[in-house]
């Protein structure tokens, strides 16, 4: 059971000039490699896009049932 126990990695190409710029920028920071930095930035970008997605929607029926309990417990008037 569970034969795949490690994080998998793949290669993405970026322009050499950009690579060099990043390499310079991360010197003396907590980032130990260009890959680490690029991973961090991409996660940040994706998360900010996800934040713009619509929030959770509940059915009318579910919402009414929940509100009833919230009123019974004194959370809603």
């Amino acid at each position, binding site marked *: *059971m*569970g034969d*795949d*126990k*490690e*994080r998998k990695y793949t290669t993405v190409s970026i322009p050499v000039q950009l690579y060099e710029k990043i390499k310079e920028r991360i010197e003396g920071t*907590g980032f130990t490699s260009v890959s680490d930095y690029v991973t*961090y*930035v991409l*996660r*940040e970008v*994706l*998360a900010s896009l*996800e*934040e713009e*997605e*619509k*929030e*959770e929607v*509940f059915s009318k029926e*579910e*919402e009414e049932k*929940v*509100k009833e*309990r*919230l009123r019974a*417990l004194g*959370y*809603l008037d």
Partner: protein
Amino acid sequence: MLPRAHGGTLVDRVMDETRRKKIKGEISDIPSIEISDDIAVDLENIAYGVFSPLEGFMSENDYRLVLDTMRLENDVPWTIPVVLDMNGEEFLKMELRAGDTLLLKRGKTPVALMELEDLFKLDRKEHALKVFRTSDPSHPGVKKTLSMGDLLLGGKIEFMEGIENPFERYTLRPVETRILFKELGWRTVVGFQTRNAPHLGHEYVQKTALTFVDGLFINPVIGRKKKGDFRDEVILKAYEALIDRYYLKEKAVLSILRTEMRYAGPREAVFHAIVRKNFGCTHFIVGRDHAGVGDFYGPYDAQEIFGEFPDLGITPVFFRRFYYCKKCYGYVNEHVCPHEGDDIIPPSGTKIREMLASGKIPPREMMRPEVAEIILGFKNPFVE
């Protein structure tokens, strides 16, 4: 706008009534294992989406990645293993295989079904070192880890029935808090984690954060704690007394999080933030030595760890020490007050507990007298 649940979807693993009735009729044919109260409560948390995106106990791949990278296999941040342990010998006797369905029960209560997807060995020392950053058995989390079974079982669950909840009146599920926040017109909500009765420092941290958002979600952890911590009912009654007298009713919600304290410091701070995101919080307060114990973690380790998660989806709000300053005539913090020494009165949790244990009301610069009186009304306010 309230955030989506962690991982994108609020998990719902509660069995519908028709299936529950059917399964109950067949229950004697299903191999079962006895679980602890802590596991039973975690099952409820998984089922109602408190631990979204988890749909069950962790498989080996998720478990290993959480230990090593603090992320699940799908790259979603997750810092605390949520696992089901079992004694290997007992497991062998049951002759279980992957794909089997297991009944997880607590006494006579059939809590959940689990489809066994994965089973793997637990290395207790490695687990302790990676989660708690120590293998010292005096750490309560390490102590618990050392007593775990040597086998971990992974798989999705279907929740059937919860164990007794003495605090049902204070228990809200993520669906409920999200609808409640919406009804209250809150678009930004700050979550506050606590395992203590409130002192003035807590109150001012909460109110400072509340100044910048629509609502405050006070969410004490109710469950197994260490000796000397406040008892659950004391925490709740103390907060009720405080909110009643000193908070705007439409700005603060008190509801509990039923789970054990792990005392995993930085890792647990991130876990606490994720859980509050699932309840619908946009912000989460991280104070000094969050979820720490003794001197196992640096005072601000639990704040620094958030730098590793640009994709957490909830904004951590960091505070340093709050205290009363005689020269500033009020409650201030290290960021705004230049005074120190005898000029300041810090609300020390240890000092407050010592005073309360000897029946004394702490100075009003440390704790509201109304809160102290509620605590002293309990015969024994502390966990023994």
